[in-house]
């Protein structure tokens, strides 16, 4: 049964997005997941919530295929046996299930029972999302984590992290190598777990967008928009058209800024410092244009419930338009320089290859997925306003190596510049914000926005008196981190920074 038929069976989850909800029993849960995997649907997220009657829990899994988004809900009680894990069909589910156990104490049938987000900061038999009284008590180190050992003649291990040798987020990588060649990489994440999901419940629901924007700071617009989409869906409101368009403008600016930063860093990792200097200069100018237009370099508090925090002024629009029309040709000429540079090409081509079949099997998502022939782009396949009215070109490649991910980023910068200039020209003239009323207790909403890395999914539930009872933000890095472990196999250790940067996955968005 294709995803669309399951979708027809289900009830709309919210008024706004086309996401639907279906409550299932364990057998149907497994059958549906199996069919979704066969139909090449994407697993967006897997998380736990309390059942509405406060007795027992719901294991939820969100999937998306072209035009259809579906959330399966499996009711479960403490006394039940482990629920069926989805990792046989969607390998990325494994870490989500392990995290769900750490936070809720509910086991999946997944044979991997190692903790994931819980290191040793809080006691093993306590579950912070279930019990608000859980406080930090342990040391926080988890030197006992059981990495998979690779044995054999001449095999040795390199442990790296959590503190890395650059200005980046912390995480641990365990390489098993022979000579310079990587036989296996195993990641151990969770170091920046700072309790975001529980923290959400301290916020009034009309202010949670501020925390959402800080789940992963480089995706501030995408998260804040996903949050607002969920909230506005709950109360059944539409924001003014101008707000839709300005949100899309902010989202595309965020995409451009991140791609620029990474394109520079990738040149640098390939030994071409010129690239870093040029792209970081362009990025700085973009951030300054952002500041002139929206009052912020990074657009943290721009997207708010009901619309935009502040309107875009004439002069702000002018500054942005001016900059973007100069940016596009500059980036194109830098692309020529990258393409013609033998040393850069030599490092990019063939490095960190994720073949399309592997990408499909592991569920690679976002721009990295598009570089491995996985077409999904939520802006096209599951669009919200104003993307429904924007003719966006899908960017894909099939080679799946660093060069392909670089090519997708270059193309996306151009496409986002084109889109942003179009938005600036055709901005509807309406108010930029209307008031968003608080939702009723028990209301449920979802948001789905194509951030620069990939789809940002967020599920929100309203508590009593304008509070948040549950908020689960989900970063595409959950899906892509495990793929990085495969991308590096057979490559040499010195290429790891380059390959890693070509994905540039989020730690904070994943660790929560």
């Amino acid at each position, binding site marked *: 049964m294709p995803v669309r038929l399951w979708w027809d069976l289900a009830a709309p989850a919210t008024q706004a997005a086309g996401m639907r909800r279906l409550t299932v029993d364990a057998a149907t849960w497994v059958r549906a997941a199996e069919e979704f995997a066969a139909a090449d649907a994407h697993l967006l997220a897997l998380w736990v919530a309390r059942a509405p009657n406060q007795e027992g829990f719901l294991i939820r899994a969100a999937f998306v295929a072209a035009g259809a988004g579906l959330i399966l809900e499996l009711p479960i009680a403490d006394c039940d046996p482990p629920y069926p894990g989805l990792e046989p069909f969607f390998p990325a589910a494994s870490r989500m299930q392990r995290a769900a156990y750490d936070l809720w104490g509910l086991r999946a049938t997944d044979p991997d029972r190692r903790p994931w987000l819980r290191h040793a*900061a809080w006691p093993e038999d306590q579950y912070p999302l279930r019990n608000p009284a859980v406080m930090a008590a342990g040391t926080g180190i988890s030197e006992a984590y059981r990495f998979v050992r690779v044995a054999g003649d001449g095999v040795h291990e390199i442990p790296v992290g959590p503190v890395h040798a650059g200005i980046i987020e912390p995480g641990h990588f365990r390489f098993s190598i022979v000579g310079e060649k990587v036989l296996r990489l195993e990641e151990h994440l969770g170091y920046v777990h700072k309790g975001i999901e529980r923290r959400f419940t301290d916020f009034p629901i009309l202010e949670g967008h501020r925390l959402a924007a800080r789940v*992963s700071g480089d995706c501030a617009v995408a998260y804040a928009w996903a949050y607002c989409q969920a909230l506005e869906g709950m109360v059944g409101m539409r924001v003014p058209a101008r707000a839709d368009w300005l949100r899309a403008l902010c989202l595309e600016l965020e995409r451009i800024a991140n791609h620029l930063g990474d394109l520079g860093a990738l040149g640098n990792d390939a030994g071409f410092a010129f690239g870093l200097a040029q792209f970081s200069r362009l990025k700085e100018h973009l951030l300054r244009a952002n500041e002139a237009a929206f009052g912020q370099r990074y657009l943290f508090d721009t997207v708010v419930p009901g619309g935009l925090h502040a309107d875009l002024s004439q002069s702000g629009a002018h500054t942005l338009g001016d900059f973007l029309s100069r940016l596009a040709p500059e980036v194109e000429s830098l692309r020529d320089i990258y393409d013609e540079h033998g040393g850069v090409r030599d490092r990019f081509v063939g490095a960190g290859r994720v073949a399309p079949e592997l990408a499909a099997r592991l569920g690679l998502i976002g721009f990295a997925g598009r570089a491995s022939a996985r077409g999904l782009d939520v802006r096209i396949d599951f669009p919200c306003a104003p993307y429904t009215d924007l003719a966006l070109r899908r960017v894909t490649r099939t080679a799946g190596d660093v060069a392909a991910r670089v090519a997708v980023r270059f193309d996306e910068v151009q496409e986002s510049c084109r889109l942003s200039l179009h938005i600036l020209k055709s901005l509807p003239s309406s108010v930029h914000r209307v008031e968003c009323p608080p939702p009723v207790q028990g209301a449920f909403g979802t948001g789905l926005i194509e951030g620069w890395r990939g789809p940002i999914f967020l599920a929100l539930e309203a508590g009593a008196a304008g509070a948040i009872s549950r908020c689960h933000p989900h970063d595409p890095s959950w899906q892509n981190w495990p793929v990085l472990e495969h991308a590096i196999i057979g490559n040499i250790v010195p290429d790891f920074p380059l390959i890693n940067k070509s994905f540039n996955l989020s730690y904070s968005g994943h660790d929560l």
Partner: protein
Amino acid sequence: MFKTIKRIAAIGIVTEAAPPVDPQLCVREILQKRIRALLGRALCIRHVDAGSCNGCELEVHALNNPIYNIEGLGIKFVASPRHADLLLVTGPVASNMRVALQRTYEAMPDPKMVVAIGDCGCTGGIFGESYASCGRVSNVIAVNVAVPGCPPSPTRILQGILTAIA
């Protein structure tokens, strides 16, 4: 190659002047003026993200771009705490990072300075204190300079660093 050189020549030097020091950012002095004078501006920084949202890192990164050009001031980021004079910490301290932060601090040779970056580093910020967050950086290690902002601009961060060694 020609295109590359042409471009370098066409753009020229874009570096801006460094901001003045701001004594208000100083929360605690440990280094005597005499030592600071000896160190001058040949400063090595080790950065640790103790639990940030990654927003502050992006602005710390910007210090390396040609416009702020921190290396032009004699200041550079180093890969090992053993080579560092100053520890730049972003984020609230996640409980899972507490020990790693302490160990990084202990690995640095004396005399050493600590600059906490962002509202999170200064107060715990939006994440506060919880089962998974120890809050502000000074809850875990001694802090000399604290730079508020969410995220603070590169100019403010640079001001904080320059204040620490003024």
